[in-house]
């Protein structure tokens, strides 16, 4: 059964909560993910297209606000840790396997097209939301942030509102 392979969800939740408390206690901030990807985008742009980074407003604004550089960021180090932690967990549980996970009712190709589209939307949305499910919704909820709670409700609300139309992909 699926539930036997993974941690009990309530235990997982408590552990995740403790990690989030540690982040706030030690660093005075919450967890995140999309912010580190943004750092990578800005860093690559600064390197391969420095003229563009100097002229385009998004990069200009970021670079002016972060004179230490985009990679000298708490989230970049935290996300590096996420990759290591998830790999250790997957290795210990024997889950390291190259595969496309999808419902048996759809093809791998269809799954990948939807994964790409979903990623693009999530990338755009995480910028407007000033953080993703970790940075805005979860970490925001922990400190009772109005914006975080609004974004959390918008994410889940939209997920439920659209679930019916994409049900073939999942059930």
């Amino acid at each position, binding site marked *: 059964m699926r539930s036997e392979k993974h941690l009990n969800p309530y235990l997982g939740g408590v552990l*995740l*909560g403790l990690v989030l408390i540690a982040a706030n206690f030690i660093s005075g901030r919450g967890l995140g993910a999309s912010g580190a990807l943004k750092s990578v985008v800005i860093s690559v742009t600064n390197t391969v297209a420095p003229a563009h980074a100097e002229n385009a407003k998004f990069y200009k604004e970021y670079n002016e606000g972060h004179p230490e550089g985009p990679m000298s960021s708490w989230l970049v180090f935290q996300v590096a840790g996420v990759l290591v932690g998830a790999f250790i967990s997957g290795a210990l549980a024997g889950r390291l396997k190259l595969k496309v996970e999808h419902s048996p009712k759809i093809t791998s190709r269809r799954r990948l097209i939807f994964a790409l589209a979903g990623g*693009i939307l999530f990338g755009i949305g995480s910028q407007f939301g000033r953080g993703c499910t970790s940075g805005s919704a979860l970490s925001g909820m922990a400190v009772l942030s109005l914006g975080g709670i609004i974004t959390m409700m918008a994410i889940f609300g939209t997920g439920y509102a659209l679930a019916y139309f994409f049900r073939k992909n999942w059930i």
Partner: protein
Amino acid sequence: MGPLFVNEIITQGTDFLFAFLIGIGFGFVLESSGFSSSRRLAGVFYGYDTLVLKVFFTAALTSMLGLLFLSLFGWVDLSSVYVNPTFLYSAIFGGVVMGAGFILGGFCPGTSLCGAVIGKIDAMVFIVGLFIGIIIFAEGYPLWEEFYKAMPLGSPKLNEVIGISQGVLALIFVLVALSLFWVGEWVEKKFPAEKY
């Protein structure tokens, strides 16, 4: 005492080291809870698997209550803890777009990193999408900068907005979460999952 970095008890280098260690804990817990599987994540929207609901809300409650207690004991100064700023329209719009991304892609950024690192190709493709999305936002920034910065409300906490104490709001969250868990357990019985 805390936050240690904000109160200059640790240096930035140490803070980054802790960021890496905290990240390891974050990734380990996400992966071992099953968040590296898009089918388990998407289950919350169809009732066959409410893993996300249980883990997410248990984590939110644990940290919310933990921080309140730490603040009560004087171990962490909550006024020095970062609270995400609220720009009303952008917060709602961003959430809506992310919700659509979630139901299409089956991941969020953090969970896609966990999936990719254990070999899920769909998660790797999702991450490619994330980069494309961020680049689209960055390149089109002048078009939506005004909207992005509209309705700045500062960094309010929900309890301040509705005029109750943090403790009372946390209690309400506890009660809401407990009812959600109850609903979650009930729908999982109603929509049993196939094995996968």
